[in-house]
């Protein structure tokens, strides 16, 4: 039979959860070479909101956890086709061209078109999590074997009972790209071309644009964007670049093992050092947790000796 019982209402668990949630932030970047183009992302986000719903079956449901994108930059490096002049047939014949003019290229190599899209604030995403509470006993790896409980207290390497939210599943809903994303992409493409050709006189830029054709269409074709840019972006980020899977993994790992919902020192201190007198601490031999739809209950059993 347990000696101590501590119960937290759903609201109190929510408050606990907020502390854990607010400690989570991500700053990641990655890129992949898809052949005709490379694409990547540079993202940073934190979590806000979310409601905690305790379940009778012991689950903790967290809904509507907002991803707040502090930084959402998608970039693509596109090899646009060679821009060359000449190469025309000088002496044609019924059997083909007998003599052909040399091709002189505008660039010494396939030029890269760098497209940079800043999508911060333009994407709405939400995460839902279903988790079970997981209790574990943490022994600090820095604690030497055989160290006494008091020496461990002094060295700040006391053992701990830790309660984690261990996700069974994490869902990410990506929806609602803002309408201006399509325009942003077109602007970004045009800006990229301008960056490439900025030093050329107007007539030369005009000629290159004419040879390339509508650059936006060209780039869209290379990137295989199609009609629905939203779908393309989501697919690029989610599937091709694996960003959403990464987010799910990061969130799951964070809650499951990085930051506990509760951390209880063992032995549990009830009176600190005073005038040289050693602290009074209680050994927690066992800790159990139950969850119902109203509250989370911790039950602790004390040991007879430290």
């Amino acid at each position, binding site marked *: 039979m347990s000696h101590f019982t501590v119960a937290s209402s759903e609201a109190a668990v929510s408050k606990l959860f907020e502390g854990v949630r607010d400690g989570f932030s991500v700053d990641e970047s990655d890129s992949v070479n898809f052949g005709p183009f490379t694409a990547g992302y540079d993202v940073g986000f934190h979590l806000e909101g979310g409601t905690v719903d305790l379940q009778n079956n012991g689950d903790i449901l967290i809904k509507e956890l907002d991803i707040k994108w502090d930084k959402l930059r998608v970039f693509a490096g596109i090899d646009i086709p060679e821009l060359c002049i000449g190469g025309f047939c*000088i002496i044609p014949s019924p059997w083909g061209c007998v003599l052909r003019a*040399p091709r002189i*290229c505008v*660039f*010494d190599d*396939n030029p890269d078109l760098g497209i940079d899209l800043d999508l911060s604030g333009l994407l709405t995403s939400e995460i839902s999590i279903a988790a079970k509470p997981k209790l574990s006993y943490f022994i600090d790896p820095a604690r030497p074997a055989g160290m006494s409980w008091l020496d461990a207290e002094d060295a700040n390497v006391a053992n701990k009972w830790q309660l984690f939210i261990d996700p069974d599943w994490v869902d990410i809903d990506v929806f609602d790209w803002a309408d201006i994303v399509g325009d942003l992409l077109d602007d970004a493409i045009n800006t990229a071309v301008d960056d490439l050709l900025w030093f050329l006189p107007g007539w030369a830029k*005009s000629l290159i644009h*004419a040879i*390339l054709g509508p650059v936006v269409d060209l780039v869209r074709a290379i990137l295989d964007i199609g009609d629905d840019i939203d779908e393309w972006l989501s697919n690029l980020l989610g599937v091709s670049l694996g960003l959403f899977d990464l987010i799910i993994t990061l969130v799951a790992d964070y809650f499951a093992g990085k930051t506990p919902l509760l951390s209880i020192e063992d032995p549990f201190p009830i009176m600190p050092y005073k005038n040289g007198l050693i602290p009074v601490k209680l050994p927690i031999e066992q800790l159990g947790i139950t969850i119902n739809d109203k509250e989370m209950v911790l039950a602790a059993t004390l040991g007879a000796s430290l």
Partner: protein
Amino acid sequence: MKAQINTHLFTQTRFDSGALTPSNFVVHPFANCGQYQADVSRNGGFLYSFIIDVSERHPEKQISLDLAQLDAKLRTADQHDCSCGPDHNLFTLAENGYGLFYASKGSGGYSVKVHPLSAEKCDHAEIFDSTALTNDDLFGITLLRPGDYLLRDAKNKIECKIHVAEVKPGKEPYRPPEALHVDAESIKKAGAQLKLLQAQGLVVRCAGFSRIVIEYKSPTEPTNKKTGTKANQPLKAAVASWKKTGVKR
């Protein structure tokens, strides 16, 4: 790494068959077999030599020799005696094949003279000088900047206006039309001017030409022929003199 742009393509305003630049080239047909030495100069100064071996045994019907690129490869060694070595300075060509000389990059100014090394199995030797083109030679150019140019051969007193029309970006990528082929006779007959689109090729058969110089004159044709701009004055004069000397219609 960002690709480097070939800026000379966009900055040149004078094109000379005797001083090759990235926009133009010369072609000489090698009708007779033999070994030929090509001496390359730049702005009048000798740079290097290489060998062209013309023979019925060789399959190549065309060799395109980038004088600028060869410059980088061959200039380091003493090339006066042109000892033939592998890889760099020996090119093979079929009998009746074409040697095309051009410069893919840089400010250009290249010229080439070809003379026979040996008359093995040959009846007589070829001589080619890009600064003095002859009958079967060809001169080719691609003009990019829209506007008006003047084509001249000072030695043979041939002049011809060239108008390069601007191309506007459209829904489809622009592909220049087929090259315009002209010769001295057709230029004299045509009278007024050659009309090209930006990036469209121009091939001049050099019979009757010696050294072709094309100069950029103005960005646009004057819209008011009475007033015009100062820059257009020379063009107007050329039109007037042309009409005076042209064939009556």
